[in-house]
């Protein structure tokens, strides 16, 4: 059974929207970190992401709102607007919104350093237009569960995270394969800055993704699933309550099943305010 191009879009869509999972403050650009927001705090972020794989291009501009319920628990909403391009044409419109939450269940503070761990959960309902070609929707509600550990100090940062994305069953019994995402990240602040001074942290991420093959009515679909690894340099620049985050995912290893376009690159730019 071959894999129709229209369904392949759904997989690319899933890959792109799998990236952000309640990214708050000093979290990795593509991976997941344990940062949450202070109690009563509001975070407003404009998040742009681009992915290119062969002739396919998917870009997204999302408004992300996060609220700090407690000092360790944040909830949020992600409202994306998408543009998809492929050989036959392009489509524009609102993507699937997402609701997310993150709970930091462990924190250890020392002088100038903090270690912490958190769990995150994200639900992505299916509300986007699936009638356009390529479709903006994915035809099912998906859920993502993540676990993350992070250490940050005045100079060094390190994170590790594991995420599992459970993709719902779409029309005609289509089961897009679930995805497992693994991230290792290091960061360095070359010049420890004072409060109210511009602050720069450089990041280097190793992001691994494993996608199960898709099935329709229990039958495995060819040319789906596989593994990709990315090396992702990134930057985190802040001034008081404003942050700019940017990064590029460069594929370093690809083992996709069958004939699938490999990811050429992914890029992300985020403007973020804490209010």
């Amino acid at each position, binding site marked *: 059974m071959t894999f129709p191009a229209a369904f392949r879009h759904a997989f690319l869509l899933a890959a792109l929207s799998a990236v952000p999972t309640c990214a708050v403050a*000093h979290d990795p650009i593509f991976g997941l970190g344990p940062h949450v927001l202070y109690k*009563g705090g509001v975070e407003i972020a404009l998040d742009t992401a681009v992915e290119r794989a062969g002739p396919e291009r998917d870009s997204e501009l999302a408004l992300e709102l996060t609220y700090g319920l407690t*000092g360790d628990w944040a909830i949020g909403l992600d409202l994306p607007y998408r543009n998809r391009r492929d050989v036959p044409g392009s489509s524009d419109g609102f993507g699937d919104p997402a609701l997310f939450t993150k709970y930091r269940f462990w*924190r250890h503070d*020392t002088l100038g350093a903090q270690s912490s761990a958190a769990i995150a959960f994200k639900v992505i309902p299916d509300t986007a237009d699936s009638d356009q070609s390529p479709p903006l929707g994915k035809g099912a509600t998906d859920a993502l569960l993540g676990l993350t550990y992070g250490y940050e100090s005045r100079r060094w940062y390190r994170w590790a995270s594991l995420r599992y994305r459970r993709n719902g069953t779409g029309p005609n019994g289509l089961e897009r394969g679930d995805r497992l995402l693994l991230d290792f990240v290091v960061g360095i602040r070359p010049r420890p800055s004072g*409060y109210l001074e511009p602050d720069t942290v450089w990041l280097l991420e190793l992001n691994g993704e494993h996608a199960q093959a898709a099935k329709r009515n229990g039958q495995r679909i060819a040319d789906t699933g596989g593994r990709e690894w990315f090396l992702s340099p990134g930057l985190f620049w802040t001034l008081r309550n404003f942050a700019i985050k940017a990064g590029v995912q460069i594929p370093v290893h690809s083992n996709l099943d069958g004939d699938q376009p490999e990811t050429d690159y992914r890029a992300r730019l985020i403007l973020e305010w804490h209010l």
Partner: protein
Amino acid sequence: MRSLVILAALLLTLGQPALAGTLEYRMRVDGLACPYCAYGIEKKLKAIDGVESVEVDLDRGVVRVITREDLRFTEPQLEKLFQDAGFTYRSMEVQTLP
């Protein structure tokens, strides 16, 4: 009469610092690694009536707060404030500024 007016004005001027006295709190806080994350501390402290300024020394893990003389922080209050901001409060020192 003119001498009396000058004397009264002088006394009022000299008496001004005593009327607008301030306190300096130096709070030891752990977990302060980045300036962006410390913004929550500034926001929470400045929301308290009587707080005049907040400075964060990340390298020493010290938050310096200047307040009106009648503002008194308690240990449980600061523990909760810093917990809500995502950090760990350790101790404080307070002194009256001249």
